[in-house]
């Protein structure tokens, strides 16, 4: 990967971030403001399922699903943040050992 490619990617990535930060303060219409406030749940839920079931451009069911299940239960049982992560990692690692 060339230095040019890395710098183009860096500039583009920062450009996206900065554009959002600068444009966001100009959004005043109530409907648009509500739209923006709904971005996190839509994207985070999508990220969770993608990180769990995506493999390149295919869907797979593997040890990561066990980790997700444990994270959901732990979160529902009000386990503290760090505990949720550690339990999910341990469950995924264990599932890989068993599988």
């Amino acid at each position, binding site marked *: 990967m060339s230095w040019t490619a890395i710098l183009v990617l860096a500039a583009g990535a920062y450009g996206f971030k900065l554009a959002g930060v600068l444009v966001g303060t100009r959004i005043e219409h109530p409907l648009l403001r509500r739209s923006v406030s709904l971005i996190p749940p*839509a994207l985070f839920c999508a990220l969770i399922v993608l990180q769990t079931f995506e493999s390149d451009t295919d869907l797979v069911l593997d040890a990561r699903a066990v980790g997700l299940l444990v994270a959901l239960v732990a979160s529902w049982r009000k386990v503290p943040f760090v505990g949720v992560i550690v339990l999910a990692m341990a469950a995924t690692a264990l599932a890989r050992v068993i599988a």
Partner: protein
Amino acid sequence: MTATSTHRRDSVALGAAVGLVAITFGVLASTAGLSLAKAMAMSLLVFTGASQFAAVGVISSGGSPVSAVAGALLLAARNSLYGMRLSERLARHGWKRIPGAHWVIDETTAMSVAQDDDVAATEAFWWTGAALFTFWNLGTAVGVLVGDAIGDPEIYGLDAAFPASFVALLGPHLSTAPGRVAGLIGASIAIVAVPFTPAGAPILLAALAIIPALLMPAAIETTDPAGSPAEGTA
């Protein structure tokens, strides 16, 4: 334990978990033929994990630099949406939002919007940003330099850390009917889109879940300054 110390502690914990993931990135970057300087430049300057993984993945599998950069930028586009969400909070910091924008990523947004009040939300953004930036770059260096000695990071279940942290931060979003609709439909769109679209597209398409969520009656309540209690389900 106060709310403040909780979100500071959680920020550092999330940073540490992400630092372990960064070791994986360092190993992959090294395997893809990137020097320490180039791998570090990626983590310092690009600083958005999914894009970095995608870029070195394409290079590793023999793809062209153009397709590597294009794919990575598609994945980076969602940070614009996060930037819009965080813009009001960052605006209070004046010029600092210009360098601060570099830290607008999945994790800082999740940690910030999970807080109850604006002060905690703003602080959570800066703390998580600082913790992630530190650990992400440390982890990258470790991965490049001593990656071979660590072995396969999947053995430790590291790939479960990211989705688990987002599950743990979802609570407040799912407490309203529009939030639940946005989450459920967003996840469904992403899953359905995976086999048909390039990497990075499913997550952007998931943003369309906002539209049905806006039609939920409780979405109007959230703008009510009187703050009438939300009815559990609509």
